[in-house]
């Protein structure tokens, strides 16, 4: 589904990625933990095709069409309504009209946004904007999800909704890579865990039923 082989990338003298290789199969969720500057966001950007790695390859089945990204930036236009935003992004992903309407309605309901469909994004509260951003990421039914600290700034209901969505997606066969500081969220949702440090994977293994406390301890041991 998603494969990285020997990824290497530097920004000037800083080695952001140092020989990273792994794969994520459909239905699997890889949680990547690591300190700031470990290269996690760079890794996601390389997987997404935003950065061409200096060495190595990243391959996602289905190309950019199949990728959904949830990150810090909502990527929504303030002066447009939620619906207009979704329509715009959907058109860039070549989503046919009928499919768009169905998915839009279902997403808006799931994320509690039905009443805000025709409101301008600039008028929405931060929590609603975050939820709209999730809708934007999912409107084209991506097979692969790349998530960069997606729970930051989410209110509890939205976080709950996102967690459910992610588990369902995994059940439906989506592959995800989740970068997070939040050990609880990461541990709960993932099938595989990786610890990243100075551009390398210090650990990569199936979670094998380990709970958040154990994952946290593994992390401290690996990184320390």
């Amino acid at each position: 589904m998603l494969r990285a082989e020997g990824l290497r990338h530097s920004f000037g003298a800083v080695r952001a990625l140092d020989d990273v290789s792994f794969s994520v199969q459909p239905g699997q969720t890889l949680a990547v933990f690591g300190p700031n500057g470990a290269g996690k966001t760079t890794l996601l950007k390389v997987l997404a095709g935003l950065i061409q790695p200096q060495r190595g390859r990243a391959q996602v089945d289905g190309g950019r069409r199949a990728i959904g990204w949830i990150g810090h930036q909502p990527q929504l236009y303030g002066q447009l309504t939620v619906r207009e935003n979704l329509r715009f992004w959907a058109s860039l992903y070549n989503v046919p009209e009928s499919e768009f309407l169905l998915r839009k309605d279902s997403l808006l309901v799931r994320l509690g946004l039905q009443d805000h469909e025709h409101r301008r994004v600039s008028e929405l509260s931060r929590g609603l904007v975050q939820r709209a951003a999730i809708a934007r990421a999912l409107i084209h039914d991506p097979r692969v999800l790349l998530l960069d600290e997606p729970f930051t700034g989410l209110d509890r209901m939205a976080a709950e909704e996102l967690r459910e969505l992610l588990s369902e997606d995994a059940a439906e066969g989506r592959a995800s890579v989740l970068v997070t500081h939040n050990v609880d969220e990461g541990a709960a949702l993932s099938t595989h865990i990786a610890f990243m440090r100075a551009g390398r994977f210090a650990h990569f293994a199936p979670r094998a039923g380990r709970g958040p406390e154990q994952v946290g301890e593994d992390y401290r041991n690996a990184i320390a």
Partner: protein
Amino acid sequence: MRSPKLLRHAWAVASKDLLVEFRSRTAILSAAVFVVLVLVVFNFGRDPTAISNVDLAPSILWVTFTFAAILALNRAFQLELENQALDGLLLAPIERSSIYLGKLIANLVFVAGVELIGLPLFALFFNVPVLPYLLPLIALIALATVGFVAVGTLFSAMTVRTRFAELLLPVLLLPFMIPPLSWAVLATGRLFAGRPLSEIAGWLNMLAVYDIVFVTLALLLFPATVNE
């Protein structure tokens, strides 16, 4: 098929830009007010007995249009920066060129709108008979506008991320505006003086060549301005 998708995506980007612009309306209003202001100032600044209208008119017209265009050019990528949407555009399965093309179309529509307001006002304030030469004049305006908006759109993608964006863009753009502008001014002057169309054909050709060269160049170079 790649071509229609390129155009379709470009059109999606363009219509999104225009919709956003329409909703906020600040840029078009500023540009319109600016045009009126410049025309009025020029009118008060000249001595009607000293220089004939027809001599100075082309320069005034084009200075007005270009300043208004420069005001407009910044908004194209500023929009993406403000909404932090550029990464989203780059993530989408679209050609980078369609982003450029979409921005170009939106900018052209915007500047055309300003010119549509400016031209009648200009004819009115300066008593210049525009109607007899309307068609060739429009062709001239269209070709020259495409020339500097094409380069301006490319440059604005770069300057928007620098510190003095609004200042840097005109500075970079100035030497690139001079050829199309000088041709446009000369040709407009000939037109207003009632010269036959065959005389300005040469300038129209040069403008067309300029447009083709720089739109192509911009399409080729645009990805270099957004890729990491």
